[in-house]
């Protein structure tokens, strides 16, 4: 399990990649990853291509990231997820509050 963040040179996008299980154990690391990042505009990308599993506390963490992004008038895009994760996102209707795909 690990988290990496990559902020584009133009400060218009930041990509957070989650490897392994995205659950409560990542709570602090996930927060730490973005808390000092300020984008001038643009979007936060959450790369879920290496994420095996995502639980409801991960959904909660995404909502925290949304709060952070909203304050900077930025969008959030969730990408690269598996069908299983897509199902979880769909049940929670997260496609209505995040850009998905």
């Amino acid at each position: 399990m690990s988290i990496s963040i990559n902020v584009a040179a133009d400060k218009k996008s930041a990509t957070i990649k989650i490897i392994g299980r995205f659950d409560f154990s990542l709570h602090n690391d996930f927060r730490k990853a973005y808390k000092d990042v300020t984008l001038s505009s643009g979007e936060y990308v959450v790369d879920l291509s290496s994420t095996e599993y995502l639980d409801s506390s991960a959904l909660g963490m995404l909502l925290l990231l949304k709060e952070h992004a909203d304050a900077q008038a930025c969008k959030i895009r969730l990408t690269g997820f598996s069908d299983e994760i897509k199902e979880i996102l769909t049940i929670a209707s997260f496609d209505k509050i995040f850009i998905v795909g």
Partner: protein
Amino acid sequence: MAEGVKNILVVDDDLTNRLILCSLLKASGYKCIEAENGKEAVQAVEGNDIDIVLLDVMMPVMDGYEAAKIIKQSSSRFVPIIFLTAMTDEAALVKCIDSGGDDFLTKPYNHALLNSKINSLLRIAELYKNIEDQNKDITEKNFQVEQEMIVTMKLFKKVVNNDLRGEKTGLNYSMSPMSMFNGDLILAEKNQTSGLEILIADFTGHGLSAAIGALPVSDVFHSMTQKGFSFADTLVEANLKLMELLPTNMFMAGALVSVDRSNNVLSVVNAGLPDLYLLRNGSIVHTFKSKNIPFGISKFSAAQIEFEMQILEYGDRLIAATDGLMEANNPQGEMFGINRLLNVFKESTQEENLLGKILKECNGFCDGAEQTDDITLLEFCHLENVKYETDEVTQVEYKEPSDWSLQFNFDIKSLRQFDVLPYIMNAVNQLQPIESGCTTVKTVLTEMFSNALDHGILKLDSSMKNSPQGYMEFYQEKQKRLESMTDGHIQVSINHELNAEGGGTLTMHLMDSGEGYNFKDINTEKNKYSGRGMRLISSLCSDVRIMGKGNSIMAVYSWSKDDL
């Protein structure tokens, strides 16, 4: 005693030996306490704050071995013991350690060696003490957590407690004992149609943090449903409360199931729960998928709630579960999943206790594997003959009748935005509690109001409601027209006058901006789904008059003190 000065108990029957040892120890900054034999030593350890014991082996009354055993057994803390012995044979030294000694020193004493052994054992004692303190801390914290759990359990029991569950009501559910701490919640309340409103929900978070959200949701759910608010209004309010209370990362996934017994229609709002299934004769008639964002995340209006309606037949079953069921895993780490659930449906017969069967299958599948989430499962069966009794007893207090009148005006915007009837009922109830729950007045006003809105303003054809399918089309058309309508209003006047019998006469008058309708036609319609509104009003009221061009109706209801 000053902090840091250690007390050392010197036990020897020989005075000279004690004197030598004590002078050595005092020179190193320790305080000495002396004992002449094992028995005295045991007493000294009991009565003093002894940090370390230097113990001779051969002594009268009680020897060192015996004393060491007693000291080690009776002391709740770690008291290091160093045996002082002239013996050098292995067996004797082993016996020292076996009887509870931590180290030994052979005579004659080497000052430096004695000091370093004492220092080493004092360090170990310090470690022991730290661990003991931490253990004490943990025990206290555990106790606090347990107390919190008991409080939470009590709160939750209050919240979820209702008597609507049972074979006779068709409502049955199972919540594993610890599921409360995983934030699972089931609420049920009788609604205006003598049917039920059921909420099954799952909070993110555990224990108290989940209970914090459950309390206001339960409050809003019960009180608004009792007052006659629609499930949409109830959910909007519950959502607002949760947004206020819950931290950003917490939310409530849930489904509201509304059973309309007047029309035999089931409405389901699914916001973040796994699929709900409507079963008829063992096969799935409809799957209610989640179409809404869970509660406590973002604001929404009643019109934004996506819900699905289905016609109910007697014997139909609705099955709902929180994600614990689907995610229940077996020792191999596989999940129970949808397919296994669907198989249970396939293999079940109409008469079977489906809930029990699902739980049994799931338990068999899990085969004792430890579960990460708890299982909450609900089954609702639509029964033909059922009367729901809530534990809520509405006692009406007699209030001296008085003369008053109220007038409400609602334009199309307010009609679109909210259910206005509960507000009217609330006002009437506050001014003059007429009968238990104001049931009759509520029924009359509800019928008058829906006539005015549905037919008067929205010009909906009540014959649409002739078939069950038509009823749903009627409902959809109503929503559509409400959204697009730009004009229209309803005026409600209610007048109360006291009468001679110690009661009063309530005159309800509704006028809508519509073109009126031919009430004679409606009155003669003899079908199940329409026209019964007028018949109902006539049967409940002493006087009913339709006035104007048919856009105005007045009904009179009299009550006496005995009705209370």
